[in-house]
Structure formats: structure tokens, C-alpha cells
């Protein structure tokens, strides 16, 4: 009897391991191995075009920190964090309105998801046309309302960056609102009923009940948004294929991509990727530490 039980247990173990084998394979070959190679390559002068690969110690890193383009790209990368609070606030507003059954919410929701389901490439093609300095709808509109010199969106890095901020915020509002709609549904009704009895206005209820209770969702969205925003690439590559005038639009991922695939400096690009990976990791960790001060942790 016991032997039969052991046999059963063993066959369950084997089945379980077999079922997760593809995942383990993925983890080892496409995740762990690349990370190991990346760390190793960051200490070499690996160039895909030349066969001799040499260990160069920390030289890639010192070169990186001395490169003004890297610092410019880092600055631009941090600039790409601006959309996160913007879309979070608007998504909360929109999600709250949907939660309160605003007129026509079904239609609104479908329309708000439209930019998100579209590919970034299609969106950038539309935006390039919309924001064309002379014939774009946006500048025609701006001239129409009396702006004499509307910005040269695609020619001036400053405005290109703001245009990208606008585009990412615009794209994300709908999808982020889904998370808030779900979170708002989960707030127990009884709390609002109690507040009603105490005579709290709906605005007071929003700020002292709703907002604190959905902080876990906000925190999750901030973390995911931060990690995603720091990796902005496609928009940059489409709007400013050379990184923009004075490298004014390029982000770190763009920088890595250029170093690796335009100048074939795999070692140097790997060093940048390692530094950037650690940077994102550190920022995320800091967010987790700060979160204890403001995120609602349950009963």
C-alpha cells in the first residue's frame, strides 16, 4: 500500500516536472544564459565584426561614464517618466467616471482602448503626419486658434520629446483605466454607506476612502509604468532615427541599440545594458521602500 502511494507520488513529480520543462528550458536558454553572456561581454571588447575578443576589465564602464551621449540619453530616458503620472491621473478620472456609470461609458471605453491595441509603428506613422510642421492637422489647428509660430514638432528635440510624452500618455489612459475600474469595484460598499451616515460629501469620500484604498493598484501601475517607460525605444527610433539633433531625443535603450547594431560594439553595449539594468533595479527597489509610507496594506 505504502509502495503504491510512493509510486503515485513519484509519477506526479515526474509529470509535474515534464509539464514545466518548456518553461525551464526557456528560463535557462533564453534568460539565464543571455544574462550570463551579457555580464561576461561587458568586460570584453567584443565586436561582432572582429574575431579577437579580449578581456578589458572595467574599460567599457569608464568609457561609458565619460561619454556625454550616455548622460544625454539618460536625461532623455528620465524625461520619458513624465507620461506615467499623467496617464495614471487621467486613467483614474476616467475609471472613476465609468465606475459611476457615466453616460455612454461602453462607447467611451471602446474608444479609449483604441490607441492601445494599435501598434506603436502605426501610431507613430499617424502622429508624424498629424504633427507635420506645415501640413499637420495639429499645427493647422494651432495656427487657427492664433498661435503664430507653432512648434516644429519633429525637427526640434525639445518638442519631439514633449510630443512623445503626449503620445504615450494618450495611448495608455484607456488600458490603465481597466485596472482602476477593477480596483474601484473591489472597495466594499459598506464603507461608503458608513461615510454617508457620517455626512461625508462625495468629494471627501473620494479623497479619504477611495484614493487610499486603491493605493496598491496605483503602486503596481507606478512600478510597471516606470519599468516600461524607462525602456522607451520604438517611438524614438521612428520619430528620430538618428537620435535627434544633438542626441536630444535618444534614450538609453536607443543608445544600446545603436552601439550594438550600428557600430557592432557588443561588449560596450553589454556594459551599458548591465549598468542600465542595475539602475532600473535600484529605482524599483527605492519605490518599494518608499511604498511602505503610502500604500494601503489591508486590515
Amino acid at each position, binding site marked *: 500500500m505504502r509502495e503504491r502511494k510512493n509510486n503515485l507520488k513519484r509519477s506526479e513529480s515526474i*509529470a509535474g516536472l515534464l509539464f514545466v520543462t518548456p518553461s525551464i528550458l526557456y*528560463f535557462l536558454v533564453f534568460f539565464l544564459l543571455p544574462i550570463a553572456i551579457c555580464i561576461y561581454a561587458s568586460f570584453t571588447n567584443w565586436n561582432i565584426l572582429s574575431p579577437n575578443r579580449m578581456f578589458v576589465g572595467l574599460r567599457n564602464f569608464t568609457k561609458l561614464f565619460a561619454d556625454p551621449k550616455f548622460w544625454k540619453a539618460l536625461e532623455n530616458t528620465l524625461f520619458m517618466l513624465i507620461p506615467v503620472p499623467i496617464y495614471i491621473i487621467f486613467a483614474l478620472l476616467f475609471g472613476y467616471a465609468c465606475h459611476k456609470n457615466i453616460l455612454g461609458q461602453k462607447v467611451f471605453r471602446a474608444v479609449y482602448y483604441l490607441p492601445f491595441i494599435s501598434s506603436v509603428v502605426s501610431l507613430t506613422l499617424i502622429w508624424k503626419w498629424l504633427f507635420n510642421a506645415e501640413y499637420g492637422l495639429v499645427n493647422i489647428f494651432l495656427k487657427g486658434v492664433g498661435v503664430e509660430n507653432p512648434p516644429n514638432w519633429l525637427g526640434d528635440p525639445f518638442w519631439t520629446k514633449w510630443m512623445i510624452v503626449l503620445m504615450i500618455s494618450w495611448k495608455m489612459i484607456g488600458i490603465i483605466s481597466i485596472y482602476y475600474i477593477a480596483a474601484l469595484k473591489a472597495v466594499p460598499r459598506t464603507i461608503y454607506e458608513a461615510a454617508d451616515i457620517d455626512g461625508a460629501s462625495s468629494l471627501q469620500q473620494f479623497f479619504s476612502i477611495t484614493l487610499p484604498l486603491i493605493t496598491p493598484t496605483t503602486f503596481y501601475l507606478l512600478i510597471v509604468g516606470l519599468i516600461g517607460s524607462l525602456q522607451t525605444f520604438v517611438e524614438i527610433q521612428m520619430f528620430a532615427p538618428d537620435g535627434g539633433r544633438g542626441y536630444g531625443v535618444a534614450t538609453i535603450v536607443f543608445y544600446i541599440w545603436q552601439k550594438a*547594431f550600428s557600430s557592432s560594439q557588443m561588449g560596450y553595449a553589454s556594459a551599458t545594458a548591465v549598468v542600465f539594468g542595475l539602475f532600473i533595479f535600484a529605482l524599483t527597489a527605492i519605490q518599494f521602500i518608499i511604498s511602505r509610507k503610502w500604500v494601503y496594506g489591508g486590515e
Partner: protein
Amino acid sequence: MKWKTSPRRVIIFIIILVGAGSMILPFLWMLSTSLKEANLVYTIPPQWIPKPVNWQNYKDVWTASNLLTGIKNSSIITIFVLLFSTFTSSMAAFAFSKLTFPFKNVIFIMLLSTMMVPLVVLLVPQFVIYSKIKWIDTLLPMIVPASLCNINVIFFLRQYINGLPKELLDAAKIDGCGYFGAYWRIFLPLCKPAIVANIIMLFMTTWNDYFAPLVFTHSESKQTVQVAIAMLNSHFIQQTNIPLMMAAALIAELPVLILFVLAQKHFTESFAMTGIKG
């Protein structure tokens, strides 16, 4: 439906209405532009309804761009990824949820940790690996890793299967099913709603992917649909046939758009479910 009117509600409604306008106008403008003759694009004030309506761009785009090849390659990638990834991920989700096996939790946490590392860290070494095994300029880098494991799908389906009773497994075993039989005949069919929701998400992300095919393929015959339409993007707008470009972008959008219209409910659900547990 209760609809109370107060000034605050009206203001919020107007903000949302303006927002909705900004979401849909670019797409209408894309459609309108795609139906124009190239020289009519630069008229000021802009024409919203093109006169004459010109369908020629939708014919020309197939010869003027690499769109057809792109659609073919993207379809191959998407079909493979949808089939295999749904299979491997649901199987893993079943194991993580209902079976006991050594190192279960360690393996699960390992998989979750892949979400923490930025994609760009993996990009360069992945390129190196693929060039060693001669995968560069094939569709395999887009198909194989994605087919083996999708941690989002695993996480999502595991959550779903956790909600199904463990007794189902015991019953299946009594009926003589092996573990694979229990998964294939009992649990997989029960997961159908969750799987449908995931397929929509997977379709969207796979079809819209641009970064991987950009980096891992070179020749025109291997371009995906996103790379093909990105090629129409020129630095100098004057050299671009804008209506043609808009037509191509619109055609590339259609599959996702159709799927979205058909299955909007599932789409929202999949996000809500993953979001709460995130």
C-alpha cells in the same frame, strides 16, 4: 440607470468627451488621408471627406511596399506562437496549480524573476546566441522563445486553475486518466474562457511586435508586418507618399481591430483579472 446631473459630473463628462475625440480623430484622419490622391494631402484647410474618394492607394500599396510578405511572416509567427504558447503555458499553469513536484516554488519564482529584468539586457546576448545557432534572419527568434513559455499567461492561467476544485484531478485519475489526460481532457476545456482572453492579448502583442523583428531579421523576405510598414517611414515627409503610408498602416491594424471588436468583453476581462493579482 441612475444618472444624476451635477455641475461636477457635467465637467467630467465634457473632459471625457474631449478625450474620446482625441482618441478617435487620429484614426479617422488616417482613414481620410488614405483615401486621398497624393497631391490633395497638402490642401489647406484640410479636407475631412476626400473629394474624390480614391481607392487606388489600397491597390498600389501591395506593389509599393513589402506589406504582403510582412503579413505572411507575421501570420506564421502569430499562429505558431498562439498554438504552442497556449499549450505549453496552460500545461505549466496546470502543473503549478494542481500537482506536487520537487522545486515547484523555486521554479515558479525563477520564472517570475524574468519579469524584473529589462528586455534590453537580454537583447545583445540573444543576438549573439542566435547568430551562433544561425537563427539570425529567420523567423525562429520570434517564434521559439515565445512558444516555450509566457510567464504572464502562466501566472494568469494558474490563478484561474486555482479556482477549479482539486477533486477534478482525483476523479480523472479514478477514471483512468494519466496526468496529461487530466490536463488535456478535463482542465484545458474548463480553462476555455481564460484562454480566449489570453489569445486576444497574445495576438495583439505578437502581431504588433516591432523590436525583435527589427533586430533579428535583415532581408526583405523576412520582414514582419510592422517592419514592412515602418520601412515606409521616411525622414523627409516630402519624399513620402502619405496616403499610401496611411493605407498600409490601416491594413496592418485591421486584424487586431477586427479581433478587438469581436471580443471586446474578453479583452477587458483578461486585463482586469491579471491586473488585480499583478
